[in-house]
């Protein structure tokens, strides 16, 4: 059970009849039982339902029916995506008992592909955070070192994949929430281009920034999963109607001639020395394999954290207005009137970080301040986008560290929101610009914590991005290293 099978291999073994889906799903629940007590990656899971679904897959295979590309693969999804089974809590007391009457687009796509969604993973409340310590139901610990955070906000999904609970999982990324926990937990995390994957059924945080993305053991799995969830959905007006390439088939494009951009803005103050060295080594390796390293300029990158925290919080303040205790979700026990019902339900139902961001965003949109904050931030966002447009005229991908440091200790940044916000300094600009980006393991710190390399590509440039990342993995084995908790089990 130390083996961490990829999604790809799991699907192959089911399709080839080497293993039954039921056997795979049962093993998956055994690992959850033994390992997740320490990690707390899962918020909910349903063994009976999953085993029943696995039997359907096995029966379908036995009777010779065609199987989907993910048939029999157990997956977990972040608990901010709606499912008609179980609760959809968003890691919040507000939605602790909320059961959605409909499923998110990605859930439908995964199930149509034959995947078995075994449960929902932990997150920072409403995806607001970088450590998965800010949920109402406790922190998720890092499988590499349980005194460390798993990153966030998709920390549950990252930890679940790293620990081998499931071969792959979905997260959502508003400012780095897939990539940063992937880096901290030593797995691959992909944030697709804005509009590539439908947001229908993803509980919104920052609507113009949110994208759903895979967390996987390797790049091939990310390509496989993206191929399943990407594509147009008429229910999401921002989902773009563009054909979905066969990402797996395109992975073998060689590194030779690929232009990789590097920018000083990603290697300045605050970057850990080990991280700098490791990422530079990764870039060197790609140069050795024939890639061309090109120096680029992203002059407005330095404003991205400020810009992001205005736009994301402004949108969040509006998106979270619907949680009022009127129709669903938490309602205060004995409201004295309608205003008190609103104030007390929201005051008691939301955690500190969510309330902080709602207030920030409300302020940024208020009359008299909107010009100085929200509209200014939109203008800066346009400049950042333009920086990327310009850069991608000269390079195919941009390489950088995913995070300034390896996973920090639980509680280390809990009292310092600003330090926490700076965790996303390298990831945020991809969301602001709407481009695609991936984090992949590129080494380990002296204390054996994973370090992440970030590659960014132009909007709808996932094919090239994934192939460069895959070629890097062909020449390295950082992604094959399992955390001690997974190997010890």
């Amino acid at each position: 059970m130390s083996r961490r099978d990829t999604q790809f291999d799991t699907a192959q073994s089911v399709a080839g009849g080497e293993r039954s889906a039921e056997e795979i799903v049962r093993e998956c629940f055994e690992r959850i039982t033994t390992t997740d007590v320490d990690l707390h990656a899962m918020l909910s899971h349903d063994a009976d339902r999953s085993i029943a679904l696995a039997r359907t897959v096995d029966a379908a295979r036995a009777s010779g029916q065609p199987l989907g590309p993910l048939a029999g693969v157990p997956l977990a999804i972040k608990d901010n995506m709606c499912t008609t089974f179980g609760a959809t809590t968003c890691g919040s007391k507000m939605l602790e008992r909320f059961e959605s009457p409909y499923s998110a687009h990605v859930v439908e796509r995964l199930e149509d592909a034959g995947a078995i969604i075994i449960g929902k993973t932990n997150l920072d409340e409403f995806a607001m955070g970088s450590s998965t310590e800010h949920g109402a139901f406790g922190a998720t610990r890092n499988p590499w070192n349980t005194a460390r955070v798993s990153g966030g906000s998709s920390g549950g999904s990252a930890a679940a994949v790293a620990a081998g609970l499931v071969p792959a999982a979905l997260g959502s990324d508003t400012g780095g929430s897939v990539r940063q926990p992937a880096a901290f937990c030593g797995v691959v995390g992909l944030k697709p281009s804005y509009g590539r994957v439908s947001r229908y059924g993803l509980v919104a945080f920052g609507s113009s920034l949110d994208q759903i993305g895979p967390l996987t053991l390797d790049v091939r799995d990310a390509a496989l999963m993206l191929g399943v969830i990407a594509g147009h959905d008429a229910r999401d007006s921002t989902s773009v109607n563009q054909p979905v390439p066969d990402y797996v088939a395109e992975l073998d494009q060689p590194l030779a001639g690929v232009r990789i951009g590097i920018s000083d803005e990603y290697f300045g103050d605050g970057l850990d020395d080990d991280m700098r060295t490791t990422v530079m080594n990764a870039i060197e390796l790609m140069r050795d394999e024939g890639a061309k390293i090109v120096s680029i300029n992203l002059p407005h990158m330095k404003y991205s954290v400020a810009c992001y925290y205005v736009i994301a919080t402004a949108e969040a303040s509006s998106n979270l207005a619907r949680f009022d205790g009127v129709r669903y979700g938490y309602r205060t026990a004995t409201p004295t009137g309608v205003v008190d019902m609103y104030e007390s339900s929201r005051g008691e139902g939301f955690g500190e970080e969510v309330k902080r961001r709602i207030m920030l965003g409300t302020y940024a949109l208020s009359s008299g301040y909107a010009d100085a904050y929200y509209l200014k931030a939109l203008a800066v966002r346009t400049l950042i986008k333009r920086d990327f447009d310009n850069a991608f005229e000269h390079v195919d991908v941009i390489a950088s560290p995913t995070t300034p440091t390896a996973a920090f200790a639980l509680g280390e940044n809990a009292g310092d929101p600003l330090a926490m916000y700076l965790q996303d300094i390298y990831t945020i600009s991809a969301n602001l610009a709407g481009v695609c980006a991936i984090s992949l393991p590129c080494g380990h710190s002296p204390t054996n914590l994973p370090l992440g390399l970030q590659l960014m590509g132009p909007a709808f440039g996932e094919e090239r991005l994934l192939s460069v990342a895959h070629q890097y993995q062909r020449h390295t084995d950082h992604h094959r290293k399992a955390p001690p908790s997974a190997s010890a089990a």
Partner: protein
Amino acid sequence: MVDAQIAVRPIIGLEIHVQLLTRSKMFCGCPVRFDDPPNSLVCPVCMGLPGALPVINRRAVELTILTGLAFGGTIATHTKWDRKSYYYPDLPKNYQISQFDLPLVSNGHLDVDVGHGEHRVRIRRAHLEEDAGKNVHDVGGHTLVDLNRAGTPLLEIVTEPDLRSAEEACALCTGLHRLVTYLGVSEGNMKKGQMRFEPNVNVAIEHDGVEYRTPISEIKNLNSFRAARDAIDFEIDRQVAAWHEDHSYVLGSAPNENRGFDADRGVTEFQRDKEAAQDYRYFPDPDLVPVNVSDAMLNEIRQSLPELPDARTARWVKDHSLSVEDAATVVGHRATADLFDAVISAGGPPAIVIKQFVNVWLSHAKQRGVTIGDLGIDPERMAELAQIVADGTISKTAADRVAEIMLARNRFDAGTEDASDTVTPSVARTLPTTKANNAARCPSPLALAKELRLLQVRDTAATDVWIDEVFAANEQAVQDAMTNPKKRKAAAGFLRGQVMKKSQGKADPKLVGELIDKRLTGSA
């Protein structure tokens, strides 16, 4: 203190909400219907469930553009959607999707005429938004929320403050109602709240050469023309009286207000200060993409724009010599106006056709609760009925009788039931209306007149016999007509009517008039 020197000039603008006639809601596929069981027409989108996203109803955009073109507005080539934030239990997302700074339509106008010439009212803007649900208060001590209406497309039309009286404001409301129902953009059913008015009212008071302006009141949510007129009238008087106290009720010193109207007591009541105005925190809705109106789309909608009532009235007055008043009775309902044009095209003499529309067809339609078109008489037959009146073949009175028989025979020729009472609107609409069917079923008015012996009698001797009988039976009227100049006209008219009745409509009214006049004056 009564001050003889003051001059009061009301300044009135209107915000009008019109519910658009679309099959589905503004941002989801739920049907738009009234009176269904509470919360039966809802989905994750219009309930504001977590993760649900809006999708624009293209039809609502088209209807808005159509309306904008009809009142001469400028159509935006690029527009977007904004969120307007406020908390209310009937607003599921606690923001309303609306249009803030880029409305679909701007700079239009509508003319009103309340008896002293046309007055142009500028329309500042018209934009699309979603309606809220409904709070149902005091149900077992609770307030319940019904979201069936939530997400219904609303067109909000905002005029400049160009209206000068409650009467003008009311005329604008009715004119707009006529326009949107004519265009088929809205059903305009006031009882269902499909049109709601919010006047902004203040007054300019000139006193000893100084002009004072009172604070602006916005009167919320009026749902009838009468309420709009009464509320504005009350509000004008109230503001003038408030100013009279010590001249301090003026803009800048006293706050603008939101007021409600109590229709039972006929008064407006304070709701809240607008100075403490809510901050709606408008910002572009990131869930929706901007709308670009292409030239092709605009042209297509422009081509679907029908001839509008004012233009049609002008054409009828010019080409058919109709009076504006007569035209007005027919022009407001598009299908009826189309039918009128078809009857004229089929050779109906306009002067007679319009009278028959108003006095005959419309009254039959009203009795049945349908429109004239639903009566199922084809335009050729209507034209023929007017022709045989025009050429003196039958009298107007006889034409009424012929029309009744036409309707009766047209509907139920197989001897099923008696005609007139049982026709319900739904039945009427399902009756065959193709020309072939009508030609077969609808009898020729001339043939009917012959069959019923209603052809006009122009024989003096026969007419004199009827007159003899009527004069003998109505001595008092004859006396009045001959001796009392004040009553002469009425009495003579009465006698003519009696003769027509006696002849069962067959007498020639002109001849009857001449013969009666001769007798009355000859004997005097």
